[in-house]
């Protein structure tokens, strides 16, 4: 450890590494110095002057957000002079502030309110006319109310430095300065809402949340985003069985405060008018609503008939359902229906990676590694569009630790801006470009390799051989698409040896029963087995559901408990935020079918906790600490020993290449994703 600097803050002896800012040193000593413009991790502004402190031997009050600690420094953070200075700053701020707290979204969690409460300045000495400008809407999700803005520039910085988008700037000067969007009167950006989230006051508000409720009237449920595989924690604000907002202000998840447009706003598929709320049964070629008991009975009876007749089943699982549901489904398929024809839409070659790394420990990166490791290599993925959180981590790593970033992609990507080297692999052969990077990579102290679906099958082994030959510690991430794509693989939603893979199921022609849980294989494909009995569990009447004999309305990820595994193998807990009338979680649906078929003794109870116990006992790598997950944390799966069975079908692996504004079926039914202009501009 480098020599620590000794100083005194409010009489407390404090030690801090050289270069630490006084405001941070104070925080670590349990002393909070108020700040509006200072924001850990973003560039310094020294604009708000709230963090002024007294420092012995310095004639003026100093901004603790820009002052590095020095040996023997004596700092006082709460003297009468300091308090008076802060009160005067607040008085200046409030002079032109509209004080519409009673209707402002931020009321109750506003930093300006908190500070005014702490330092006074509640009575105004200002009797002139205030500067006023009308509120502006910059996009369906971002609104700006200039009079409330205290010009702390947090929004500008998070967008530029954090998101790498740089959509916000400042126009005019003096008291009429204001924040402005990149397209003059509107925004074209990631629509991530990070700017809104970070705004200390109610100047930036979100289209989803504004004027709907007050923070204290909501219940806050921390769960995992239902969209991409990065597995961000999102805290849903729920009132009257409605989700009103998503954020991660308590920074409790792996994603700290990060959320992209999907995690923050695209929860709104759950109450789409086309949401299925009753089981449907095909009668005379038409789907008619029936009761749950009738629907379950129909399915159980038919499954039983097919089983007894020795007929042919095929089961398709989901990229979005929980680990428990995936496990339960494949178990049901294998043990009750007696079939090995089980698959899902595979989006990344995780098995090949696990196999190539089998027997080695410390080789699978967690999302934090992308922020901490000294070098990152991105192969064949546009992370900013496909894995927004991983992309954010890499930018932050570059900003805070000057990480070396290497990029090998077919097209320009946002990571180019922070990359030491960017190569375009026009011919889709990544190994040529990789070899040319060999010397540079080998000179790094450590590396994380993130690769997309262009690297699959044998190429994964080749990539691992390449990484292991560099002679430095290397970790890997095999990218997959959706919130539980990784879990689907781990839980075994893959065919047995000799079993049918998804395209073969569609092409078979002799299926007797086709069971699809949370997937839409008929969107692009066709089922040749015209006479097969088709059961679909879904939230919406997808192309596949339309072809079903029985449709069972499923609960979404925000409506159930369970666990999901993210792209890095981090297992996290889903927490039920609300319920939608008429729907049931897939786990319960499967359980009901099992009971109806008399298979309950084989299947066991269908509570998420019980199934998770079984997963821990029987799924390789999942013997993870329960308390970590139960407490809302993330526990990475364990490395695997021994070969992983590979079916040698890398051709089946294909990322859907969802962009920031699409998300498979969920995206089709999200109002927000369809309303932003970028969803029309995007690829």
């Amino acid at each position: 450890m480098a020599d620590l600097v000794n100083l005194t803050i409010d009489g407390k002896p404090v030690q801090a590494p050289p270069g630490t800012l006084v405001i941070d040193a104070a925080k670590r000593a349990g002393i909070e110095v108020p700040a509006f413009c200072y924001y850990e991790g973003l560039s310094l502004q020294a604009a708000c002057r709230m963090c002024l402190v007294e420092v012995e031997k310095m004639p003026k009050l100093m901004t603790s957000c820009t002052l590095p600690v020095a040996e023997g420094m004596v700092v006082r953070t709460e003297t009468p002079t300091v308090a008076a200075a802060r009160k005067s700053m607040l008085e200046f701020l409030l002079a032109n502030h509209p004080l519409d707290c009673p209707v402002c979204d931020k009321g109750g969690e506003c930093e300006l309110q908190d500070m005014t409460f702490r330092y006074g300045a509640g009575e105004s000495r200002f009797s002139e006319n205030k500067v006023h400008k009308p509120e502006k809407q910059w996009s369906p999700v971002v609104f700006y109310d200039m009079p409330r803005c205290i010009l702390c520039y947090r929004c500008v910085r998070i967008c530029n430095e954090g998101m790498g988008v740089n959509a916000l700037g400042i126009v005019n000067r003096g008291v009429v300065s204001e924040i402005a969007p990149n397209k003059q009167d509107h925004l074209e950006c990631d629509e991530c809402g990070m700017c809104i989230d970070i705004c200390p006051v109610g100047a930036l508000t979100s289209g989803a949340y504004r004027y709907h409720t007050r923070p204290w009237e909501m219940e806050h449920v921390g769960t995992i985003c239902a969209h991409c595989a990065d597995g961000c924690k999102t805290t849903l604000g729920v009132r009257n069985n409605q989700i009103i907002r998503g954020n991660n202000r308590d920074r409790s998840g792996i994603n700290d405060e990060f959320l992209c447009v999907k995690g923050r706003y695209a929860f709104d598929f759950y109450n789409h008018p086309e949401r299925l709320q009753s089981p449907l049964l095909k009668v005379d070629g038409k789907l008619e609503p029936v009761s749950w008991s009738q629907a379950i009975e129909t399915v159980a009876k038919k499954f039983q008939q097919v089983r007894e007749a020795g007929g042919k089943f095929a089961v398709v699982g989901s990229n979005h359902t929980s680990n428990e549901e995936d496990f339960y489904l494949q178990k049901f398929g294998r043990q009750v229906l007696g079939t090995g024809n089980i698959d899902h839409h595979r989006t990344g070659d995780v098995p090949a990676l696990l196999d190539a790394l089998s027997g080695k420990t410390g080789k699978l990166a967690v999302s934090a590694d992308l922020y901490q490791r000294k070098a990152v290599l991105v192969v064949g993925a546009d992370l900013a569009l496909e894995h927004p959180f991983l992309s954010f981590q890499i930018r932050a790593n570059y900003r805070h630790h000057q990480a070396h970033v290497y990029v090998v992609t077919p097209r320009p990507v946002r990571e180019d801006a922070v990359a030491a080297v960017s190569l375009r692999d026009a011919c889709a052969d990544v190994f040529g470009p990789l070899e040319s990077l060999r010397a540079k990579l080998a000179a790094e102290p450590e590396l994380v390799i993130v690769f997309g679906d262009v690297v699959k099958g044998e190429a994964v082994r080749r990539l691992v051989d390449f990484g292991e030959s560099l002679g430095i510690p290397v970790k890997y991430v095999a990218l997959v698409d959706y919130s539980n794509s990784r879990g689907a693989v781990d839980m075994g939603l893959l065919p047995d040896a000799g079993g049918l893979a998804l395209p073969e199921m569609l092409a078979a022609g002799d299926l007797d029963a086709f069971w699809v849980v949370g997937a839409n294989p008929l969107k692009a494909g066709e089922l040749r087995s015209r006479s097969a009995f088709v059961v679909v569990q879904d939230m919406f009447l997808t192309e596949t559901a339309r072809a079903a004999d029985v449709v069972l309305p499923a609960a979404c990820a925000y409506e159930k408990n369970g666990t999901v595994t993210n792209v890095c193998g981090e297992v996290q807990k889903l927490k039920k935020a609300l319920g939608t009338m008429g729907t049931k979680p897939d786990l319960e649906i499967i359980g009901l079918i099992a009971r109806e078929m008399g298979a309950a003794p084989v299947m066991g109870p269908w509570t998420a906790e019980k199934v998770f116990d079984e997963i821990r006992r029987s799924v390789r790598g999942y013997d993870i600490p329960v308390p970590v997950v139960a407490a809302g944390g993330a526990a990475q799966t364990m490395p695997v020993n021994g070969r992983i069975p590979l079916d040698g079908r890398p051709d089946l692996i294909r990322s859907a290449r969802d962009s920031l504004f699409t998300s498979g079926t969920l995206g089709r039914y999200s109002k927000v994703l369809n309303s932003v202009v970028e969803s029309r501009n995007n690829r």
Partner: protein
Amino acid sequence: MLYNEPSPHEVKVLTRRFGLENSASLDTYLATDGFKAFKKALEMTPEQIIEEVKISNLRGRGGAGFPAGLKWSFVPRNSPKPKYIVVNADESEPGTCKDRLLMENDPHQLIEGVLIAGLAVDAHAGYIYIRGEYRYLIEIMDRAIAEAYSCGYLGKNILGSNFHFDLYTHTGAGAYECGEESALLESLEGKRGVPRIRPPFPAVVGAFQCPTVLNNVETYCAVPAIIRDGGAAFAALGVPKAGGTKLTCLSGHINKPGVYELPLGFPVMKMIEEVGGGIRGGKKLKAFIPGGSSCPVLTAEECQDLTMDYDAMARKKTMLGSGGVVIMDEDTCMVRAALRIMRFYAHESCGWCIPCREGTTWIRKLLQRFHDGMGQRSDIALIGDLAKNMFGRTFCPLGDAAAMPTMSIVEKFYHEFEDHLDGKPCPYEKARQLVMA
């Protein structure tokens, strides 16, 4: 072109070529000792040049009065980065109009000063950041620079010395704040003109993140004389700790407004009476601004026995500043003067930090209401209080510059505020308008 008759009290060092025919041409410059100092400097080591400037006691003429030689010595000599010379020609301090004359009448003197600074810190490029409103000066400077290039005083291998130097003009876009050194650098780099966090100072991290010497036009213009005639000779012209002459801009209620080159330490009353020809209309002096609108205002009594130099002004709790002297006679309404000054700062505040952004406009509105006869007694204290709350707490000195004159006027002319109370019309109704920016 000259705008006023010279005064016999002047000591013409920087203005020695003013009034010569074609004074801006390189021919005239060369015929009158031009580039002699540069040739001499070519024979000197950088340390010797800096030492000579230190001996001269030359202090920055842009307002803060920081010793120029000392500033130059802060440039890290062993830095592998290129170094830059930046000329602050943004001259926007109300009451100040001297840099324009130096550039208009003797642009080559500035070029020579910049070249010597370049030698002193091993810089090979310079920028002259010229106030946008000085359009015609940009043309004059560009012409002079082109002339210097064509005659081998700029560019590669200057005078066969192996020393190369490129000089550019850069146009300001109409913001007082862009005269503040770090905001100037941001603006020079093409960004919004807001100040930077310091430290690091420009000498270490300046233009394009490289070590940079940044001085006022007048500061550079003094350098050729210092090198040519020696630092000691220059120092001897002024007072201890402040060498040489200062271009003083007399404006306001005075008979002979204009720019005069006076030795530092020149008595204030003598300046008003003899150089400026006394107060217009035989009126009495009421208030005195020594160096631009940012300085605390002095009363007539405070001006007796006062001399024009940095330390004497500091003893009176004001500043020599940029040399923009404003004379206000007995008919001046000081509330209105305060308002006029605050209107300027409210308009020019860049808006970066809270106290200046909000404070200047608030005080401006208060003063306006007060002057309109709608003030209350409590407003007087409020005005002073708000200024105090700004003072020393802003991000850059503009906030102080706005607070200081206000505080001094409230303190020293309190009774004039009282005279505006109770809806009384301004008692100085017949007062002439201030001749100020």
